[in-house]
């Protein structure tokens, strides 16, 4: 089956058992009656397993090419559950400009847990190699990264990690399995903020994980049940519903993003534009070796903070909000929003300047978006 068909028919469930219903029922229940005291039935308690959540979990496993999938209450709950697989004293290397929330979890919550982490430029094999310690147990990678769309070579990182026995984890939120499938390139675990492109409608908070190896999947299943940061049935159903149009949405959003990236590159007021579709985007070649598209998030820099703030204020069409990946375009200001959890000096070191705008391109007509950008720039 082609990928777009898989997306629509993903989350296979026993349709005959459900009166032929074309959409999985929402099992809004906590517990399941049991028949036999000696043997637990397939489901016993919704935290441990729920048919609606399971349909979504099966879908993400299938789409990412994993042996198992998991749905969590948020992208951070997915990432934190994965981080709970590690032990005190273990060391994790993280992509430099990782999502601010992941940075916060590692530098506060998991540091207190005794988990060591350090940041390295995962776009450079040498930098990653230099960061490896005897107790390095995992790589946590974002590619393209948030918000600068920097590209890491997934296959190279797998080779390096394997050499040192480290587990490889990719946050695939920006690409979704439609455009990039890290497990197929040898990664062990993929995490998603499904709030973004997979859900696609800015109407829920959810996280997903897919795992290649069955033993690792068993461990994550244990954490999911034990920590209990699960996704509820209603939101599982909404995520599945959103997922069905992922192929169609991403196609249009990506096309518009490419058009906007080229358009912005020609504007004298814009100092730099970051999007893998641009011919000069660093790591472009690597990106298109491992991904089939450039995605619908771009970022760009204006001249200075003052002009950037004025520009954001003058924009009329996109929502000015945190988050991304929805059907509506969302403009955000990473320094004060997605990456506010990162101290200013850390942000600066990563190139997340006060003049940077992140733009998640939605389903609006790109001409309207261009017109809106032009009128906002004219006001500066």
């Amino acid at each position, binding site marked *: 089956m082609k990928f777009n068909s898989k997306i629509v028919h993903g989350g296979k469930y026993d349709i005959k058992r459900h009166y032929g219903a074309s959409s999985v029922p929402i099992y809004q229940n906590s517990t399941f009656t049991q028949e036999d005291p000696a043997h637990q039935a397939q489901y016993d308690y919704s*935290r441990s397993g729920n048919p609606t959540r399971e349909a979504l979990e099966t879908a993400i496993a299938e789409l990412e090419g994993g042996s198992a999938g998991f749905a969590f209450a948020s992208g951070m709950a997915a990432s934190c559950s994965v981080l709970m697989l590690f032990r005190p004293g273990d060391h994790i290397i993280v992509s430099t400009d990782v999502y601010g929330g992941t940075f916060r979890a590692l530098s506060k919550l998991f540091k207190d847990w005794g988990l060591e982490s350090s940041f390295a430029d995962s776009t450079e094999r040498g930098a990653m190699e230099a960061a490896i310690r005897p107790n390095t147990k995992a790589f946590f990678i974002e590619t393209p990264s948030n918000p600068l769309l920097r590209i890491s070579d997934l296959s190279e990182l797998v080779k390096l990690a394997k050499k040192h026995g480290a587990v490889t984890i990719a946050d695939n939120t920006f690409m979704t399995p439609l455009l990039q499938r890290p497990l197929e390139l040898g990664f062990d675990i993929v995490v998603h903020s499904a709030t973004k492109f997979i859900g696609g409608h800015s109407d829920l908070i959810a996280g997903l994980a897919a795992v290649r190896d069955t033993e690792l999947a068993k461990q994550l299943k244990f954490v999911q049940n034990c920590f209990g940061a699960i996704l*509820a049935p209603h939101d599982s159903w*909404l995520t599945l519903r959103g997922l069905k149009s992922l192929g169609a949405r991403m196609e249009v959003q990506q096309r518009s993003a490419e058009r906007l990236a080229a358009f912005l590159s020609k504007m004298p007021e814009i100092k730099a534009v970051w999007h893998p579709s641009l011919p000069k985007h660093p790591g472009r070649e690597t990106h298109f070796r491992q991904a089939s598209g450039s995605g619908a998030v771009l970022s760009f820099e204006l001249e200075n903070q003052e002009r950037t703030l004025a520009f954001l204020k003058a924009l009329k069409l996109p*929502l000015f909000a945190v988050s991304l990946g929805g059907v509506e375009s969302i403009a955000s200001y990473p320094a004060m929003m997605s990456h506010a959890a990162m101290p200013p000096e850390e942000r600066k070191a990563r190139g997340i300047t006060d003049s940077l705008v992140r733009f998640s391109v939605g389903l609006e007509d790109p001409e309207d978006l261009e017109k809106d950008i032009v009128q906002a720039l004219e006001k500066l």
Partner: protein
Amino acid sequence: MPRKLETMLAQAGSKWDSKTGALSMPIYQCASFRHPGLGQSTGFDYSRTSNPTRLTLENTLAELDGGAKAFAFGSGLAAIDAVLRLFAPGDKLVVTEDLYGGTFRLIEKLHKPHGVSAIYLDSSNQDSLENALKTPGVRGLFLEIPTNPLLKVADLAAASRAAKQHGVLVIVDNTFLTPALFRPIDHGADIVIYSATKYLNGHDDLVAGIAVAKDAAIGEKIAFIQNAAGAVLGPQDSWLLLRGLKTLSVRLERQEKNANVIAGRLKEHPRVRKVNYPGLPDDPGHATLKRQGAGFGAMISFELDNAAALPSILSSVQVFLFAESLGGVNSLITYPAVQTHADIGPEIRAKLGINERLLRLSIGIENVEELWNDLNRALAASPA
């Protein structure tokens, strides 16, 4: 003047939406909130951090329990995990020994490897509790009142006094009684935890957890953890839980009345060796709970004469549902050794008295005679 419980419950979320006057809290099924301008916020930015529907639920729980702040999580265990994260490696907790198996598993499998360990004891024994609090490194006291499944009752006021002498944080899992029957903060608790899946929601139709902090400083810390780890409750389930809460008081009233009848009759039944229910006047926990609470709840456990009878009873009940969980409008029957407390291991279970002859009942709001006839018939038909 604080509102009375029944009023708080009936009007939970009813006055939030002044624009439309909607009596039921709107479900804000959204991830992000548009900023009015840079550096400006409507009070809501991103639903993981805060969501109006969830916040209304959280505020309701804070008010019900007399706490400064409350937090809603994706499950009871996620709430407990957030509270356990307040402790640092090397910290020890004194914990009720016959507690929910999932809490035991969470402490032993996820938190102990990271340096937060537990001393388990019979928390209804004040002497042993005071002794344990003297152990160097003890920073937290975690009590289930009453315990699950043996329904033992700790004297919270006395336990809190002892804990305060040692600067120990007092955490109470109040899932069984709810603020309708027991308000732990009034008796010295710093944090109250709920599996809201149970009585608070009461309809067996969602999985959720709540943590209530007595003061704002601890509230801030839990808020940080809730946002950073992101194990939040979604808006739909927050709304369902608000909806469930509205009938908490009337549900529990009927459930407790039914439980009293069932517990009393079980006690007289020739096949029953022992009944654990603090509502029975001669139950060891009766006096304490009568003093500190406003009721005894609707959870009962009892020991049969013969372990071989259990499978037969579980498969022959027709009104009681054989399932995990508790606290809903339906009566449930559970086999703790096999279901809820499997993670504790056979040796510890035997020591605690969670044996193969023990059954747990969560009494619902059905007709009590029908419940009793069902149980009585199943008992009569089971091998002696």
